[in-house]
């Protein structure tokens, strides 16, 4: 603890920064005031310290390189879309909204063209020569329908029966193996070829063995 009545110069120097900041208690401040009145050296230190604080604290001491502001503005404009009239924040919303509208429109259009039934597979085409009431098997994880007992049924644990008409309505395509006979009769013209190619592509995706309906 400093004896405030008998401050020496070293004690004053130790507290001079706090003194300048007004961060000394009243008793110490009085003692320092008294010391400065009688000690020219410490008064000089105090004046110099105040000059330092005053000069460096001036806004003019904060100089930036030429063009600093322009470069900063440019970088902000590039990264946070500061410039302009908020285009980027609009764009941030517009892009996903436009994409959503496009997708929704596509789905509605597809549904309208397919008589209101959404095809489960984009490869699915109606196989017109399959008897609509034919009992077929569908299963989860596959887009192909089969006749019961077909060795290429995918995920047998989830298989269930339905009619060919319902299966096709739900977007399934016929297995080119077990339903080949119907496909053969239906493969007249390009549409049939596409059905077969599509079915092959689907089956390939699913790792199923598919015979080409167009060849062999």
């Amino acid at each position, binding site marked *: 603890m400093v004896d405030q009545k008998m401050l020496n110069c070293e004690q004053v120097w130790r507290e001079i920064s706090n003194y300048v900041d007004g961060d000394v208690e009243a008793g110490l401040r009085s003692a320092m005031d008294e010391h400065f009145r009688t000690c020219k050296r410490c008064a000089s*230190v105090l004046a110099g310290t105040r*000059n330092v604080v005053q000069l460096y604290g001036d806004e003019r001491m904060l*100089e930036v390189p030429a063009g600093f502001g322009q470069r900063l503005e440019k970088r902000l404009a590039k990264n946070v879309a500061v410039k302009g009239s908020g285009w980027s924040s609009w764009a941030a919303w517009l892009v996903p909204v436009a994409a959503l509208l496009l997708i929704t429109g596509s789905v509605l259009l597809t549904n309208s063209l397919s008589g209101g039934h959404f095809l489960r597979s984009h490869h699915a085409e109606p196989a017109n020569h399959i008897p609509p009431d034919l009992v077929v098997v569908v299963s989860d994880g596959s887009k192909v329908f089969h006749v019961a007992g077909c060795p290429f049924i995918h995920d047998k644990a989830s298989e269930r029966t339905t009619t060919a008409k319902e299966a096709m309505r739900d977007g399934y395509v016929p297995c080119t193996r077990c339903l080949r006979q119907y496909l053969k009769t239906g493969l007249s013209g390009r549409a049939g070829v596409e059905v077969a190619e599509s079915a092959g592509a689907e089956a390939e995706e699913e790792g199923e063995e598919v015979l080409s309906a167009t060849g062999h």
Partner: protein
Amino acid sequence: MSEPGMVLNNPVQAGGREQDLILSVQRGQNELFYELVRPYERRVYAAALAILRNEHDAEDAAQEAMLKAFANIRQFRAEARFSTWLIQITVNEALMRRRRERTVVMEGIDGRRSGRDDEEREYAPRDFADWREIPSEALERKEVRQRLAEALGTIDRKYREVFVLRDMEHLNIQETAEALGITVASVKTRLLRARLMLRDLLAAGWEQGWFSRLPFEKGNKPW
């Protein structure tokens, strides 16, 4: 839209305008962000320069700090001063950059010369010339500003950082301690040393008269 310079001249209006800008940017008006930070671009740069001591690195760090401030603007709460928040982000960015780039190696000599023991040892002023108040008009002269900047550049990093944040950025003692991750006691000790060292360094200029070569002081030194 008001000029940033005008904003700074009236603290009450400035505070209101600044709060409006902050809220607008927080609500998504990104284009107002530069207007919000423009009054502080010099302070941000000075803080980065005090730590990095390289103009190019300081500018890059200052820009990066601004971007981080923008990215986190929604986390800013009105109870803090925006300028302080911005400076703290800048200090963090500069300190992180210095650690990453190992520029601390460049400070090795200084570090050895003024390690912890040196910091704890009391600093005694060396010059006792009769100083009087230097008019702030002295800063109009580029030479004076340059001399002051050079003097600041010669003191050790740990003193310079505290001095810049406290006396140039005007953070308080507690904010300075938090920004640099040191104790309040360390801030006070380093600040004292920085001020006294700068005072001694500037004494040379005092004696050489480069503070006095002002038009209004010809033939009549004010001290």
